[in-house]
Protein backbone atom coordinates (compact mmCIF):
# COMPACT_ATOMS: atom_id res chain seq x y z
CA UNK A 1 0.00 0.00 0.00
CA UNK A 2 1.47 3.39 -0.89
CA UNK A 3 2.29 6.17 1.48
CA UNK A 4 -0.92 8.17 1.08
CA UNK A 5 0.43 11.60 1.88
CA UNK A 6 3.83 13.28 1.78
CA UNK A 7 3.29 16.42 3.81
CA UNK A 8 5.27 19.49 4.81
CA UNK A 9 3.92 20.76 8.12
CA UNK A 10 5.90 22.78 10.64
CA UNK A 11 3.73 21.52 13.50
CA UNK A 12 4.80 17.97 12.59
CA UNK A 13 2.43 15.53 14.32
CA UNK A 14 -0.67 17.40 15.46
CA UNK A 15 -4.46 17.39 15.27
CA UNK A 16 -4.83 17.94 11.52
CA UNK A 17 -2.44 15.09 10.80
CA UNK A 18 -3.62 12.54 13.34
CA UNK A 19 -7.34 13.25 13.19
CA UNK A 20 -7.99 15.44 10.15
CA UNK A 21 -6.12 13.23 7.67
CA UNK A 22 -5.52 10.17 9.80
CA UNK A 23 -9.13 9.20 10.30
CA UNK A 24 -10.52 9.57 6.76
CA UNK A 25 -7.44 7.97 5.19
CA UNK A 26 -7.47 5.16 7.77
CA UNK A 27 -3.82 5.79 8.53
CA UNK A 28 -1.92 3.00 10.27
CA UNK A 29 1.49 4.63 10.49
CA UNK A 30 3.18 8.02 10.47
CA UNK A 31 6.80 8.52 9.46
CA UNK A 32 8.26 11.72 10.86
CA UNK A 33 11.40 12.77 8.99
CA UNK A 34 13.30 15.35 10.97
CA UNK A 35 16.99 15.28 11.80
CA UNK A 36 16.54 16.92 15.19
CA UNK A 37 13.66 14.72 16.33
CA UNK A 38 15.41 11.61 15.04
CA UNK A 39 18.33 12.41 17.34
CA UNK A 40 16.28 12.96 20.49
CA UNK A 41 14.46 10.28 22.49
CA UNK A 42 12.64 13.02 24.39
CA UNK A 43 11.31 14.63 21.22
CA UNK A 44 10.21 11.26 19.90
CA UNK A 45 8.32 10.48 23.09
CA UNK A 46 6.71 13.92 22.91
CA UNK A 47 5.27 13.24 19.47
CA UNK A 48 4.46 9.58 20.11
CA UNK A 49 2.48 10.27 23.25
CA UNK A 50 -0.62 11.84 21.72
CA UNK A 51 -1.01 9.42 18.85
CA UNK A 52 -3.71 6.76 19.24
CA UNK A 53 -2.39 3.25 19.85
CA UNK A 54 -3.57 1.92 16.50
CA UNK A 55 -1.24 4.37 14.76
CA UNK A 56 2.46 3.52 14.70
CA UNK A 57 4.97 6.37 14.62
CA UNK A 58 8.52 6.07 13.25
CA UNK A 59 11.30 8.64 13.28
CA UNK A 60 14.09 9.05 10.79
CA UNK A 61 16.64 11.47 9.52
CA UNK A 62 16.55 11.99 5.75
CA UNK A 63 19.04 9.24 4.94
CA UNK A 64 17.26 6.74 7.18
CA UNK A 65 13.87 7.56 5.72
CA UNK A 66 15.12 7.11 2.18
CA UNK A 67 16.67 3.79 3.10
CA UNK A 68 13.44 2.59 4.73
CA UNK A 69 11.13 4.01 2.05
CA UNK A 70 10.66 0.78 0.09
CA UNK A 71 9.70 -0.98 3.32
CA UNK A 72 7.07 1.63 4.08
CA UNK A 73 5.67 1.32 0.58
CA UNK A 74 5.34 -2.42 1.06
CA UNK A 75 3.55 -2.02 4.40
CA UNK A 76 -0.01 -3.37 4.37
CA UNK A 77 -1.25 -0.24 6.13
CA UNK A 78 -1.69 3.29 4.83
CA UNK A 79 0.85 5.85 5.92
CA UNK A 80 1.65 9.55 6.12
CA UNK A 81 5.20 10.82 5.78
CA UNK A 82 5.88 14.21 7.35
CA UNK A 83 8.64 16.77 7.23
CA UNK A 84 8.68 20.04 9.13
CA UNK A 85 10.15 22.20 6.37
CA UNK A 86 10.62 22.50 2.63
CA UNK A 87 14.34 21.81 2.68
CA UNK A 88 13.91 18.45 4.42
CA UNK A 89 11.24 17.39 1.93
CA UNK A 90 13.42 18.45 -0.98
CA UNK A 91 16.35 16.44 0.36
CA UNK A 92 14.07 13.50 1.03
CA UNK A 93 12.61 13.51 -2.48
CA UNK A 94 16.12 13.39 -3.93
CA UNK A 95 17.30 10.72 -1.51
CA UNK A 96 14.30 8.51 -2.20
CA UNK A 97 14.77 8.92 -5.95
CA UNK A 98 18.26 7.52 -5.48
CA UNK A 99 17.55 4.82 -2.90
CA UNK A 100 14.14 3.63 -4.08
CA UNK A 101 13.63 4.77 -7.69
CA UNK A 102 10.50 2.69 -8.13
CA UNK A 103 8.93 4.55 -5.26
CA UNK A 104 9.99 8.05 -6.25
CA UNK A 105 7.84 10.69 -4.54
CA UNK A 106 5.46 12.22 -7.09
CA UNK A 107 3.19 14.35 -4.95
CA UNK A 108 3.89 16.67 -2.02
CA UNK A 109 1.28 18.33 0.14
CA UNK A 110 2.10 21.67 1.74
CA UNK A 111 0.01 21.41 4.87
CA UNK A 112 1.25 24.21 7.08
CA UNK A 113 4.22 26.59 7.00
CA UNK A 114 3.45 29.41 9.37
CA UNK A 115 4.55 32.98 9.79
CA UNK A 116 8.06 33.91 10.80
CA UNK A 117 10.24 36.90 9.92
CA UNK A 118 11.36 36.81 6.30
CA UNK A 119 8.37 34.84 5.09
CA UNK A 120 5.60 36.22 2.87
CA UNK A 121 2.04 35.01 3.23
CA UNK A 122 0.88 32.97 0.25
CA UNK A 123 -2.16 31.29 1.79
CA UNK A 124 -3.90 31.37 5.16
CA UNK A 125 -1.60 28.57 6.32
CA UNK A 126 1.39 29.01 3.98
CA UNK A 127 4.14 31.61 4.46
CA UNK A 128 7.34 31.24 2.45
CA UNK A 129 10.80 32.76 2.23
CA UNK A 130 12.26 33.37 -1.23
CA UNK A 131 14.53 30.34 -0.67
CA UNK A 132 11.55 28.14 0.21
CA UNK A 133 9.76 29.31 -2.91
CA UNK A 134 12.79 28.42 -5.00
CA UNK A 135 12.98 24.99 -3.38
CA UNK A 136 9.32 24.29 -4.05
CA UNK A 137 9.74 25.39 -7.67
CA UNK A 138 12.73 23.08 -7.93
CA UNK A 139 10.65 20.22 -6.56
CA UNK A 140 8.01 20.90 -9.18
CA UNK A 141 10.76 21.11 -11.80
CA UNK A 142 11.82 17.60 -10.78
CA UNK A 143 8.36 16.37 -11.72
CA UNK A 144 6.78 16.44 -8.27
CA UNK A 145 3.21 17.68 -8.10
CA UNK A 146 3.15 20.23 -5.29
CA UNK A 147 -0.07 21.60 -3.88
CA UNK A 148 -1.23 23.21 -0.66
CA UNK A 149 -4.11 21.81 1.36
CA UNK A 150 -4.46 21.88 5.12
CA UNK A 151 -7.35 19.46 5.63
CA UNK A 152 -8.98 16.82 3.39
CA UNK A 153 -12.13 18.90 2.92
CA UNK A 154 -10.07 21.79 1.58
CA UNK A 155 -9.26 22.38 -2.07
CA UNK A 156 -5.73 21.44 -3.15
CA UNK A 157 -4.19 24.64 -4.49
CA UNK A 158 -1.49 24.05 -7.14
CA UNK A 159 1.95 25.50 -6.47
CA UNK A 160 1.70 28.11 -9.22
CA UNK A 161 -1.48 29.47 -7.66
CA UNK A 162 0.08 29.39 -4.18
CA UNK A 163 3.10 31.39 -5.30
CA UNK A 164 0.91 33.83 -7.20
CA UNK A 165 -1.08 34.46 -4.04
CA UNK A 166 -4.24 33.08 -5.63
CA UNK A 167 -4.74 30.81 -2.61
CA UNK A 168 -5.50 33.87 -0.52
CA UNK A 169 -8.80 34.48 -2.31
Amino acid sequence: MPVELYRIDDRLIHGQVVVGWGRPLDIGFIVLVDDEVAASEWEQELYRMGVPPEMEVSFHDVAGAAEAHARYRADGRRGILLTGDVDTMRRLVRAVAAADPAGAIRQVNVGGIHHRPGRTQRMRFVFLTPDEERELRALAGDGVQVSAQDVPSGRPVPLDDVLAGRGLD
Partner: protein
Amino acid sequence: MSNAIAVVAGHGDFAAGIVSAIDQITGRGELLLPMSNRGLGAADIEAMLRDALAAAPVRVIFTDLPAGSCTIAARRVLRERPDLRLVMGANLPAVIDFVLAGEAAGDDAQAVAHAVERGRLALQEVGGAR
Protein backbone atom coordinates in the same frame (compact mmCIF):
# COMPACT_ATOMS: atom_id res chain seq x y z
CA MET B 1 -1.24 40.74 36.37
CA SER B 2 -4.19 38.53 35.59
CA ASN B 3 -5.56 36.34 38.37
CA ALA B 4 -6.07 33.38 36.03
CA ILE B 5 -5.24 30.01 37.54
CA ALA B 6 -5.43 27.97 34.37
CA VAL B 7 -4.86 28.22 30.63
CA VAL B 8 -7.29 26.58 28.24
CA ALA B 9 -5.68 25.99 24.85
CA GLY B 10 -6.83 24.29 21.70
CA HIS B 11 -8.00 24.41 18.12
CA GLY B 12 -10.24 27.08 16.65
CA ASP B 13 -12.53 28.64 19.23
CA PHE B 14 -12.41 25.67 21.60
CA ALA B 15 -10.80 27.63 24.43
CA ALA B 16 -12.86 30.77 23.95
CA GLY B 17 -15.99 28.61 23.94
CA ILE B 18 -15.02 26.80 27.13
CA VAL B 19 -14.19 30.07 28.89
CA SER B 20 -17.35 31.75 27.66
CA ALA B 21 -19.47 28.83 28.84
CA ILE B 22 -17.80 28.79 32.25
CA ASP B 23 -18.29 32.50 32.63
CA GLN B 24 -21.96 32.09 31.81
CA ILE B 25 -22.37 29.19 34.22
CA THR B 26 -20.21 30.31 37.15
CA GLY B 27 -19.28 33.94 36.53
CA ARG B 28 -15.62 32.97 37.01
CA GLY B 29 -14.35 33.07 33.46
CA GLU B 30 -11.60 35.47 34.52
CA LEU B 31 -9.85 32.57 36.21
CA LEU B 32 -9.03 31.13 32.79
CA LEU B 33 -6.85 32.33 29.93
CA PRO B 34 -8.07 31.09 26.53
CA MET B 35 -5.56 30.36 23.78
CA SER B 36 -6.08 29.31 20.17
CA ASN B 37 -3.47 27.78 17.89
CA ARG B 38 -5.25 29.12 14.81
CA GLY B 39 -2.78 30.28 12.20
CA LEU B 40 0.26 29.72 14.40
CA GLY B 41 3.32 27.57 13.98
CA ALA B 42 4.71 25.43 16.77
CA ALA B 43 7.20 28.03 18.01
CA ASP B 44 4.55 30.75 18.15
CA ILE B 45 2.16 28.54 20.10
CA GLU B 46 4.87 27.79 22.63
CA ALA B 47 5.79 31.48 22.89
CA MET B 48 2.17 32.46 23.42
CA LEU B 49 1.85 29.88 26.17
CA ARG B 50 5.01 31.14 27.88
CA ASP B 51 3.70 34.70 27.69
CA ALA B 52 0.46 33.61 29.33
CA LEU B 53 2.34 31.85 32.10
CA ALA B 54 4.43 34.95 32.72
CA ALA B 55 1.32 37.08 32.98
CA ALA B 56 -0.70 35.07 35.48
CA PRO B 57 -0.30 32.65 38.40
CA VAL B 58 -1.32 29.72 36.24
CA ARG B 59 -1.09 26.27 37.82
CA VAL B 60 -2.82 24.09 35.24
CA ILE B 61 -3.02 23.93 31.45
CA PHE B 62 -6.04 22.32 29.81
CA THR B 63 -5.76 21.30 26.14
CA ASP B 64 -8.15 19.65 23.72
CA LEU B 65 -6.43 16.92 21.70
CA PRO B 66 -3.63 14.79 23.15
CA ALA B 67 -1.84 14.96 19.79
CA GLY B 68 -2.63 18.64 19.24
CA SER B 69 -0.03 21.33 18.82
CA CYS B 70 -1.14 23.08 22.02
CA THR B 71 -0.52 19.87 23.93
CA ILE B 72 2.90 19.50 22.34
CA ALA B 73 3.73 23.11 23.28
CA ALA B 74 2.48 22.59 26.82
CA ARG B 75 4.61 19.49 27.26
CA ARG B 76 7.67 21.43 26.15
CA VAL B 77 6.91 24.11 28.73
CA LEU B 78 6.34 21.51 31.45
CA ARG B 79 9.84 20.24 30.88
CA GLU B 80 11.09 23.49 32.44
CA ARG B 81 8.10 24.02 34.72
CA PRO B 82 7.41 20.62 36.28
CA ASP B 83 5.30 22.35 38.92
CA LEU B 84 2.60 22.91 36.29
CA ARG B 85 -0.02 20.30 35.50
CA LEU B 86 -1.37 19.46 32.06
CA VAL B 87 -4.81 17.98 31.41
CA MET B 88 -5.29 16.96 27.78
CA GLY B 89 -8.56 15.93 26.21
CA ALA B 90 -10.28 18.47 28.46
CA ASN B 91 -14.00 19.09 28.31
CA LEU B 92 -16.34 21.64 29.87
CA PRO B 93 -17.30 19.59 32.95
CA ALA B 94 -13.64 18.98 33.78
CA VAL B 95 -12.62 22.63 33.48
CA ILE B 96 -15.64 23.85 35.45
CA ASP B 97 -14.82 21.41 38.20
CA PHE B 98 -11.26 22.68 38.41
CA VAL B 99 -12.32 26.32 38.41
CA LEU B 100 -14.71 25.77 41.28
CA ALA B 101 -12.28 23.64 43.29
CA GLY B 102 -9.00 25.22 42.24
CA GLU B 103 -10.02 28.77 43.11
CA ALA B 104 -9.41 27.94 46.76
CA ALA B 105 -5.69 27.40 46.02
CA GLY B 106 -5.67 24.18 47.96
CA ASP B 107 -4.28 20.87 46.84
CA ASP B 108 -3.84 21.12 43.07
CA ALA B 109 -3.14 17.42 42.68
CA GLN B 110 -6.46 16.59 44.28
CA ALA B 111 -8.35 19.31 42.38
CA VAL B 112 -6.97 18.19 39.04
CA ALA B 113 -7.60 14.51 39.73
CA HIS B 114 -11.17 15.37 40.69
CA ALA B 115 -11.64 17.47 37.54
CA VAL B 116 -10.31 14.69 35.32
CA GLU B 117 -12.68 12.20 36.91
CA ARG B 118 -15.63 14.60 36.48
CA GLY B 119 -14.73 15.06 32.84
CA ARG B 120 -14.60 11.30 32.30
CA LEU B 121 -17.89 10.68 34.06
CA ALA B 122 -19.62 13.40 32.06
CA LEU B 123 -19.08 11.50 28.82
CA GLN B 124 -22.19 9.40 28.52
CA GLU B 125 -24.38 8.03 25.82
CA VAL B 126 -28.13 7.58 25.82
CA GLY B 127 -30.64 6.61 23.16
CA GLY B 128 -29.96 4.46 20.12
CA ALA B 129 -32.95 2.15 20.75
CA ARG B 130 -34.18 0.25 17.73
